[in-house]
């Protein structure tokens, strides 16, 4: 396939997509000091040129709709087209955020229902849909924890504990909330080191952030004890919901002792990742944090759905976005949960877990090394390619790049950092057994190549749009915008 020139190279002065250009209006009333003097660099192409360009570019992407995409922690499962259809209806798309509730009952009913469903599946007491992604949910959660301690005059707590294996957003969020992130060790079996926890907690402890199943891809078995320890020390427990897919309908974070959590609707609730976003990261809380929920929230009053804001929730941490979050994504998540229903939700964890355990077992049988061989896999699992690295001089990243040649997206690599040369593999429940078997075959072939012809790996990929890209050069010789003389 040919490389696609940039859209700017297709541009020609005074070319335009004529059917899209409205008639100009007069700017005579605008003093010239406010006006632009030279034209910006925007493409001047025909509609057909634009369509060809972006259609061609689209062919250069892997995507769930084309490839097995076992990216651990990211839950790349099927994004149902019906939910996209539901959210793309004019009544939803054309709704201005400042439209009064009286003529927005359709939208508000959707949001209200979603709040209810999320409250139930998390086992919490209330939900706010405001956060626009997981990381913003984390921020909202820690802000609520902070507000809670402050409301009790408990001002000195300035530490948030996170496992060494935690996702980067956890410590980063702690910092954004003005907290110090303290790392806690993870034991050889993937569970948090309880003794270490006992040492760390104290009057400075604002809370702890955990995923469960953890980013080590195992279920944190001591969660009840941990909850006890942290609560006893006066801290609260934050649940990072990125792995909720593993336990949806099985157990609720609320029943594990968590006080607050976010969900990644773009993971567990199957809204599309869009090449980077958007997502939605609703937060759910138990009773003690309800007063602090971010606004707006949909409530009911006199049989009508209403926005509840500062008036109804005076201690709220506030708004997180200009309006009310990623409503279009929330509608998709509702549509998805309507199709699943409680029976479908139960099956999500079952089949996600079945797929992961099957794949783990088959890979182990094929001679790959599980990071936690004594543990059950959850919805994902970790393998370490450390031995292959030592024996054949290839790295996990080389395996990853070579997998692309099999039309399989690479699993998450080098995360969590504590497992050397690791792959975090999450097949998700929407993949077939045949697909998993193909993955095992590909991995076996790649390992055979590592033995006999390691350059097949180190120089991979061979059959993609590009060969291996030079990231060092990208960071050193920054080329971030196209310039007419770039080529």
């Amino acid at each position, binding site marked *: 396939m040919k490389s696609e020139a940039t859209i700017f190279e297709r541009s020609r002065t005074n070319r335009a997509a004529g059917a899209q250009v409205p008639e100009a209006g007069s700017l005579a009333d605008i003093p010239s000091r406010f006006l632009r003097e030279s034209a910006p660099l925007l493409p001047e192409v025909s509609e057909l040129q634009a369509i060809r360009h972006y259609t061609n570019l689209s062919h250069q992407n892997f995507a769930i709709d084309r490839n097995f995409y076992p990216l651990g922690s990211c839950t790349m499962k099927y994004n149902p087209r019906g939910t996209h259809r539901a959210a793309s209806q004019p009544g939803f798309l054309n709704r201005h955020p400042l439209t009064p509730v009286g003529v927005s009952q359709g939208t508000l009913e959707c949001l209200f229902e979603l709040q209810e469903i999320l409250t139930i599946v998390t086992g919490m007491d209330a939900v706010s849909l405001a956060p626009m992604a997981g990381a913003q949910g984390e921020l909202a959660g820690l802000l609520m924890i902070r507000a809670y301690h402050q409301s009790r005059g408990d001002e000195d707590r300035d530490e948030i504990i996170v496992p060494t294996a935690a996702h980067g957003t956890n410590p980063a969020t702690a910092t954004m909330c003005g907290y110090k992130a303290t790392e806690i060790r993870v034991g050889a079996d993937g569970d948090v080191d309880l003794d270490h926890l006992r040492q760390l907690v104290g009057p400075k402890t604002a809370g702890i952030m955990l995923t469960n199943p953890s980013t080590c891809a195992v279920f944190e078995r001591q969660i009840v004890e941990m909850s006890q320890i942290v609560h006893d020390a006066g801290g609260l427990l934050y649940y990072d919901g990125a792995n909720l897919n593993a336990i949806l309908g099985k157990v609720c974070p609320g029943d594990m002792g968590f006080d607050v959590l976010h969900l990644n609707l773009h993971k567990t609730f199957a809204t599309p990742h869009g*090449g980077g976003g958007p997502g939605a990261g609703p937060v759910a809380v138990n009773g003690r944090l309800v007063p602090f929920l971010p606004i707006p929230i949909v409530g009911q009053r006199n049989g009508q759905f209403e926005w509840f804001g500062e008036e109804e929730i005076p201690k709220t941490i506030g708004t997180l976005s200009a309006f009310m979050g990623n409503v279009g994504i929330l509608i998709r998540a509702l549509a998805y949960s309507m199709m699943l229903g409680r029976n479908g939700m139960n099956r999500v964890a079952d089949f996600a877990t079945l797929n992961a355990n099957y794949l783990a077992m088959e890979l182990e049988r094929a001679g790959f090394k599980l990071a936690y061989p004594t543990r059950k896999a959850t919805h994902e699992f970790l393998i370490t390619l450390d031995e292959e690295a030592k024996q054949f001089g290839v790295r996990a990243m080389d395996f990853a790049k070579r997998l692309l040649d099999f039309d399989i997206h690479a699993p998450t690599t080098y*995360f969590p950092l504590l497992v050397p040369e690791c792959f975090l593999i999450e097949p998700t429940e929407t993949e077939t057994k045949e697909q998993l078997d193909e993955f095992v075959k590909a991995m076996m072939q790649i390992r055979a190549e590592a033995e006999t012809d390691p350059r097949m790996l180190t120089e991979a990929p061979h059959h993609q749009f590009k060969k291996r890209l030079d990231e060092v050069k990208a960071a050193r010789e920054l080329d971030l*915008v196209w310039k007419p003389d770039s080529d």
Partner: protein
Amino acid sequence: MPFIPHTRADVSEMLASIGVSHVEELFSEIPESIERADLFAIPLGISEMEMLRVLSNRARQDELGPCFIGAGCYDHHIPAAVWDLASRGEFLTPYTPYQAEASQGTLQLLYEFQTMMSSLTGMDVANASVYDGGSGLAEAILMAIRCNRNTKSKRVVICGAVNPFYLRAARTLVGSQGVELVHCEHVGGRHAVGLDDFGEVAAVVVQQPNFFGLLENVDEITDWAASKKALLIAVVNPMTLAVLKPPGDWGEGGADICCGDGQPLGVPMSSGGPSFGFLCTRIKYVRQMPGRIVGRTTDSGGSTGYTLTLQAREQHIRRAKATSNICTNQGLLVTAATIYLSIIGLTGLSNVASASHANTRYVVDKLCASGLVSPTFDGSYFHECAINLHRDAQGVFDELTTKHKILAGFPLGEAFDGLESSLLVCATEKRSQEELDFFCRTLLEVLN
């Protein structure tokens, strides 16, 4: 079983391979002491057909007549091709392009986006999105504080007519990092440059056109900020930059950081989200910028390609020391905006801006000619305008909504004390002559 492909035979084979007899056994590590979930209150699953029936009814229920509200979210025309392309599975369903070789489509598109946004704003570089205009302002403020080496102050001056919804969100988002946001009152709808003395200031935030649609004296404000060694943060509507002076050209030295919401660029209103926030800055500050950035590089065969770069700024590498905690951003909307900008093109965007302004001016002039309405503020406005109805604007608005299904504007009293009789109106290029006239007629009828 929606979306699950397993046949019974598959399940048996897989369980046998694992060596368990029932799926439930796979959950044996979950302590018994944790109660099993009870989803009984959630209804049973329904088919796509039934789901669409329910949600179509709700969507239809919310359909309305023409929209004359702006206030940060705008009803522009979106060429049909934009979402036909952006909804292609190859753009809709990948993750963040971590594996560059398998994501050249999205990566090249983001590089094109960065180019367009940099040029529109007159800045050196752009990131590949934050959540929205509100989080964009928050990130800009935090970034400015990191960038400003002249002072340790965390004080940031906010000009009076910055979008109050952005400001409100920014307050939440930066609230626990010791940042002090000083909101100056507007004077006659505008910022009165240099009237106050704020001591050491890390940054000044000004919006152009401001929330009331008024054109601020951005050149003076920029120079004033520079004189105080404060960074200048420009909040802009990217659509207007097709004709208005870009922040990079403001004053002597230009703005330092530019942020805003990309919704006007091909993103449906959709109740305000998903949209996307953008951040642009000078190259010297690029390492302080949060969010994804794409760089052009070469592959091992020497051919040009694209990859995420400067990842050392980001949470997945830098963790607690990252420039921000942002991970998932608003990529798909950036995709749509890039396609929108390519299709609408240079002339198109400029005409959208001028036509929107002309439509708004038509409405304002016609209403004011009646004598029942007057401009709330003096001076030049662009694209949006506050008008004084000389009575409770909320009441008028409600009447127009209920009786005529017209959204007449944003009643400013909701956000600004003292402006209870003012309505912020906006008519984009999408409003037809009939709609403009109908709007004026019905509004005047209600006022009469």
